[in-house]
């Protein structure tokens, strides 16, 4: 027949050719890491080493936390080819509610936080219902939400103005580190080492499985290089953190959320359904997937994560302000796209989104250190964002 037989390339390719092939095939994802490294080196050079100090890395993590949480939720929304513009002010509003609960009603932060998370869930539910039941496009629904929660934020702080939060536990979420009384923060280092070991086990198992089924795997030398690279990067960061205050709470919170969402996307029916709907919603529905229920999940999860992000941001400032939340959605959307979520939907990973977040927040942090004017910061971030997405679309088209 007229089909071209694609034969399995069993013969051994040379290491050099493999590297070239991997570079070609994965230019998109490698580019992201390269960009991050280049940006970090650039800022470290421009700030005469201030960027990569232990203190600034801790700062960067604490600053990036709320964006990372938003971007994880946004990644799900964007894979489904939806959008949520309201998250910035939902986060701001949630932070204000948390502050009011703690200062005016004297509710403990450990009760206030779950209440605020539930409010976020309720907001997500309401927006999800409008999108799925009334078929109003998400763009319109959440644009309306942007108006509503911007107003709600102002209203809730109208009488008091900015609320200063005295609760130490609350403020520690985005300023403090895990309890680590040991000399040189050994617990932090231990967590890093255990983390690396777990990642190694997972990667080695996954590779072994692939070999068992005769799937293509990277050759052993490259695989080892990958493992070593991961170990080096993680250990550099961990030892830096240990030399300062230890592992920040923000890193723990983001890490737990990230692991949960990564598991959900890769290993569960729900994750499959999300990719399926994003790839082709009609086909997914005809395959027996309940499209509306999955959409509902996405908006509910987004609302809840927006509330958690609001808590982190409020904790970071140790206060709730009427302008909190302005432009958060832009950073979250940019993080997701820089992290490789396809503009046409159906493709994306939360782990890569975190890299995207680090790119965006490194730009913010680095330019702040350099004393770049905030207006210019927006321009620079916009330019990098559009370059990343244009590059993404181009490399995907080339692959076709």
């Amino acid at each position, binding site marked *: *027949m007229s*089909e*071209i*037989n*694609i034969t399995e390339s069993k013969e051994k390719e040379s290491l050099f050719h493999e590297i070239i092939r991997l570079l070609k095939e994965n230019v998109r994802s490698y580019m992201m890491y390269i960009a991050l490294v280049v940006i970090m080196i650039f800022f470290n050079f421009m700030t005469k080493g201030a960027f990569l100090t232990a203190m600034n890395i801790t700062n960067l993590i604490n600053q990036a936390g709320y964006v990372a949480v938003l971007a994880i939720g946004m990644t799900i929304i964007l894979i489904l080819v939806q959008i949520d513009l309201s998250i910035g002010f939902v986060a701001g509003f949630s932070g204000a509610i948390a502050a009011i609960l703690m200062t005016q009603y004297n509710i403990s932060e450990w009760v206030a936080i779950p209440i605020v998370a539930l409010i976020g869930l309720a907001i997500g539910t309401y927006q999800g219902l409008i999108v799925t039941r009334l078929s109003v496009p998400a763009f319109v629904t959440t644009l309306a939400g942007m108006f509503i929660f911007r107003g709600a934020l102002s209203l809730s702080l109208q009488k008091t103005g900015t609320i200063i939060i005295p609760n130490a536990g609350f403020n520690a979420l985005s300023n403090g580190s895990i309890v680590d009384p040991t000399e040189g923060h050994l617990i932090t280092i231990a967590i890093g080492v255990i983390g690396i070991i777990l990642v190694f086990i997972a990667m080695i198992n996954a590779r072994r499985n692939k070999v068992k089924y005769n*799937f293509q795997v990277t050759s052993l030398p490259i695989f080892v290089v990958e493992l070593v690279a991961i170990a080096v990067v993680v250990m550099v960061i961990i030892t830096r953190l240990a030399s300062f205050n230890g592992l920040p709470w923000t890193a723990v919170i983001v890490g737990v959320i990230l692991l949960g969402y990564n598991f959900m996307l890769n290993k569960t029916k729900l994750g499959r359904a999300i990719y*399926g709907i994003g790839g082709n919603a009609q*086909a997914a529905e005809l395959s*027996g*997937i309940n499209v509306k229920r999955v959409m509902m999940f996405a908006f509910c999860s987004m609302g809840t994560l927006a509330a958690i992000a609001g808590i982190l941001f409020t904790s970071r400032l140790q206060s709730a302000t009427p302008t909190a939340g302005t432009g958060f959605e832009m950073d979250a959307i940019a993080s997701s796209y820089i992290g490789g979520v396809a503009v046409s939907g159906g493709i994306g990973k939360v782990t890569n989104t975190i890299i995207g977040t680090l790119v965006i927040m490194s730009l913010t942090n680095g330019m702040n250190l350099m004393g770049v004017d905030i207006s210019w910061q927006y321009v620079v971030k916009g330019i990098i964002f559009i370059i990343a997405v244009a590059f993404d679309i181009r490399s995907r088209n080339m692959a076709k």
Partner: protein
Amino acid sequence: MGDYILEMKNIEKVFPGVKALDNVNFSVKRGEIHCLVGENGAGKSTLMKVLSGVYPHGTYSGDIVYDGEVQKFRNIADSESKGIAIIYQELALIPELSVYENIFFGHEIASNNIINWNETIVRAKEELKKVGLDNVDPSVKLKTLGVGQQQLVEIAKALSKNVKLLILDEPTSSLNEDDSENLLELLKKLQKEGVTSIMISHKLKEVTAIADTVTVLRDGSTICSMDAHEREIKEEEIIQNMVGRKLDNIYPKRAEKKIGDVVFELKDWTVEDPEKNYREILHHVNMNVRKGEIVGLQGLMGAGRTELAMSIFGNPKGYRITDGHLYMNGKEKRYHSPAAAIKDGLAYVTEDRKGNGLILMQDIRYNISVANLDALVKKLSINENEEIRIANYYKESINIKAPSIEQKVGNLSGGNQQKVQLAKWMFVEPNVLILDEPTRGIDVGAKFEIYTLMNRLVEEGMSIIMISSELPEILGMSDRLYVMSEGTITGELIGEEADEEKVMALAVKS
């Protein structure tokens, strides 16, 4: 003779995984009506897309000589400027605009970029007259016209661009007999006025009635060109050239037929479409399927076959089912989502595998397991080892040609994509499998494999409803068949008593 308006020489066009055109030569004489025939997937539409610039110069190899010059069209605008116009099966008109706006859409009559609407309306009237639509008011919205008239508007649009070579891709496939005849008359009239036409058609009666020359394509190659002025062209001859082998061995026979009790039945099934102003699209449909039986459902495009399948299969389009009963294994059911239908043992393989069947950006493994993940879930997470085993099993057992199950489905050929779709639904193990145009756009070899697979499934006790507009296929495969026309079952034919004439007569009955 020998004055050719068009010569396409050694045309070759490759898509990822499939060679769609292989060394095609195609010559059209000035002023003739040239019919291009071939099975679905033979490469007719691809050839016309190469000609019209949809696939620009450089994406194919070979030469296009038109009006004595080698042409290098970069897009449709290029070919249009030379007087080539193509009219697709799916009309490229805008329903909400008026007839005259449609006729001059894209080449408006304007001076200094300001449209002269009065002149447009006058000119539109002239063009409508040429296609015999004298009585149509050019200012009405296009959507108020019937399909046949819309087709004529499309031709009027082509004429308004001073077309010299008119290409029609299955122009009569959605028309009734009167409209079809009307259209063929028009082509002859235009021929006298000097317009050359290329018509792609499956309707061989029309072809033999109208063609000056018939060219047959098969599997992406030119098989022959026949001149009607040298000798009479017979339908049988065309068919033989189209399929390349005797008709009887394309359809594998089952060793023994074990047909059991009725497993699925529809009574008085009546459906309205809210998107078409609640017009009734299916009228009191009665049909049944027995265990181990292949039931054909034939009808022309627009007869309501896909709508029927969708309304049964959980009604994802949101039609309003106003009357009727559905019985599955003797129990009355009404499915409100595809998920519910699947759970009850009903599966539907869509006619549009790229549009709503497969998730092209995902791999074979994903697509095979997606409709039956419940079978693979262990404590929240999907058992990937089992999933890989299943996917590999189907890849081997139905011969999906790909380097591994990690291959993206979008990179497979049509035949292999169709096999992935079938594997996906075989994994669900339904009782009743609805196949909608299961061999559309795939090559003859893959078709044979799919027919063999269908026989295997019914031998194992599945029941199949096969929707197809290809007469030979439905006659060759069905134990029994229903014919539909305009939303009504117009007849039921049992195996041997069915032949092309009987089916066709029922299919055009209104």
